[in-house]
């Protein structure tokens, strides 16, 4: 077998970051259009129109939709038949994110937690965030890239409830978190919810939830029902686009879940803004890269 060229991983990591920032996924565009059609308040409708113009300009000029290029997150899935060296892939993801920032070029937002020094290339210790997963029966490497801006990420919250609090506590927590976040996360976006697992897993589930195509319902009927109930509840608040009032406060609520401990009942919320940015690359062993969302 021909030796796999890891430059393709670096190239794909660079291109998906740029693609995510400049080209919104079709499902996000569709969800915004449908939201606009359902919105009855004139000032809120003006806000949607501005969003469509912003998307159109970014398409035409190949520029960033939002100036906050965020912190890079790569969700990587490696096929069981893919020839791979994990350490090399990790290095190349970081290199790709850094090159995207310097070569496009756009603002780098990563910074040292104490000195606050910004290397201006979006990476640094611990970054990019990488999630690793493995898929049986596939010979490719998939990377889903999500740039996460601070307005929405700063609204993240989680809580370890107890079983006696029941599922009502989980639902109330999500609704209250949304109301408290107000205009900060540039609504209407995706409300990502994690339930179950451990303290760290529950937030990761919420993060995976925002990376799902908008409105794709959970396969689990119990979860899907909870998604719908929360969506209706959040839209009933009237907080609306940009927190300025309106019928549409969220494009979708997505829930990801896991088993938890018999004494635990955890929930986490991670919000994504209206430019719900993400891009995907699939790398085949031949070195061919397919780009999508």
């Amino acid at each position, binding site marked *: 077998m021909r030796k796999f060229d890891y430059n393709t991983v670096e190239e794909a990591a660079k291109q998906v970051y740029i693609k995510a920032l400049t080209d919104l996924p079709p499902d996000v565009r569709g969800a915004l259009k449908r939201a606009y059609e359902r919105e009855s308040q*004139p*000032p809120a409708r*003006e*806000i949607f*129109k*501005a*969003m469509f*113009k*912003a*998307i159109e*300009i*970014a398409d035409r*000029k190949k*520029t*960033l*939709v*939002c*100036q*906050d290029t965020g912190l890079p997150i790569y969700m990587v899935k490696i096929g069981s038949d893919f020839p791979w060296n994990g350490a090399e892939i990790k290095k190349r993801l970081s290199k790709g994110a850094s090159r995207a920032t310097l070569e496009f070029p*756009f*603002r780098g937002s990563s910074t040292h937690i104490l000195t606050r020094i910004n290397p201006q290339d979006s990476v640094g210790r611990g970054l990019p965030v990488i999630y690793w997963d493995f898929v049986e029966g596939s010979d490719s490497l998939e990377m889903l890239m999500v740039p996460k*801006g601070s*307005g929405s990420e700063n609204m993240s919250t989680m809580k370890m409830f107890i079983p006696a609090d029941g599922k*009502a506590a989980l*639902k*109330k927590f999500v*609704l209250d978190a949304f*109301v408290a976040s*107000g*205009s*900060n996360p*540039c609504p209407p976006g995706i409300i990502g919810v994690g339930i179950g697992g451990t303290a760290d897993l529950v937030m990761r589930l919420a993060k995976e939830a925002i990376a799902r195509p908008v409105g794709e319902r959970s396969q689990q009927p119990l979860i899907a029902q909870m998604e719908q*109930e*929360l969506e*209706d*509840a959040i839209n*009933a*608040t*009237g*907080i*609306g*686009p*940009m*927190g*300025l*009032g309106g019928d549409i406060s969220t494009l979708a609520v997505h829930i990801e879940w896991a088993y938890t401990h018999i004494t635990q009942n955890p929930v986490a919320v991670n919000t994504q*803004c*209206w*430019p719900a940015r993400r891009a995907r690359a699939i790398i085949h062993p031949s070195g061919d890269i397919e780009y999508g969302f």
Partner: protein
Amino acid sequence: MATYHLETAFSEQAIRKLKIGDIVYFDGTLFGIRDLTQIYMFDQNHEPPVDMAGHPVIHTAPSLRKVGDKWEKICVGTTTSSRMDRFTPRLLEKCGVRAIIGKGGQYRQSLDAMGKFGAVYLAIVGGAASLETEQIQEVEEVFWEHLHPEALYKFKVKDFGPLTVAMDSHGGHRYFEVKAEAERRLPGIYEKLLA
């Protein structure tokens, strides 16, 4: 809801006409400022080198590039205004600024100052930096360059908007109103959601 197309500098009368929920577009001069610009101005007592009277300011840290001695825009977006709440009364009183443009709104002291001096808060559509950048025709001047990207910027803009009047000079505060309405609705929403 009324829609206004204004030109800078704004007169006090034109600004006092605006009510929360109205939509504004404008042409003319827009000043860019951020946290550091205002710390430099107010906490460290540096007199602004330009007259901002009657003009709007926007909360931004623009991404620009300098070609020769001319600045060019790359991407100009808007940041959250709540962090800069404490500067607004002085911006209105000392500099004569008539509109603050940002995202998320500001608090009571800014609202009171808007009533007193005749100014408004205009909410931009956050995340729509591509649109904002397109509506900025030119970066006319950058004052206090050493503070870049938190210097003082003079932009020339055309059809800048849509901006929603979110705080007016009559005590109207759209975010407070929306929040109060949400709180009024919450008991009914809980009842349905938690049944």
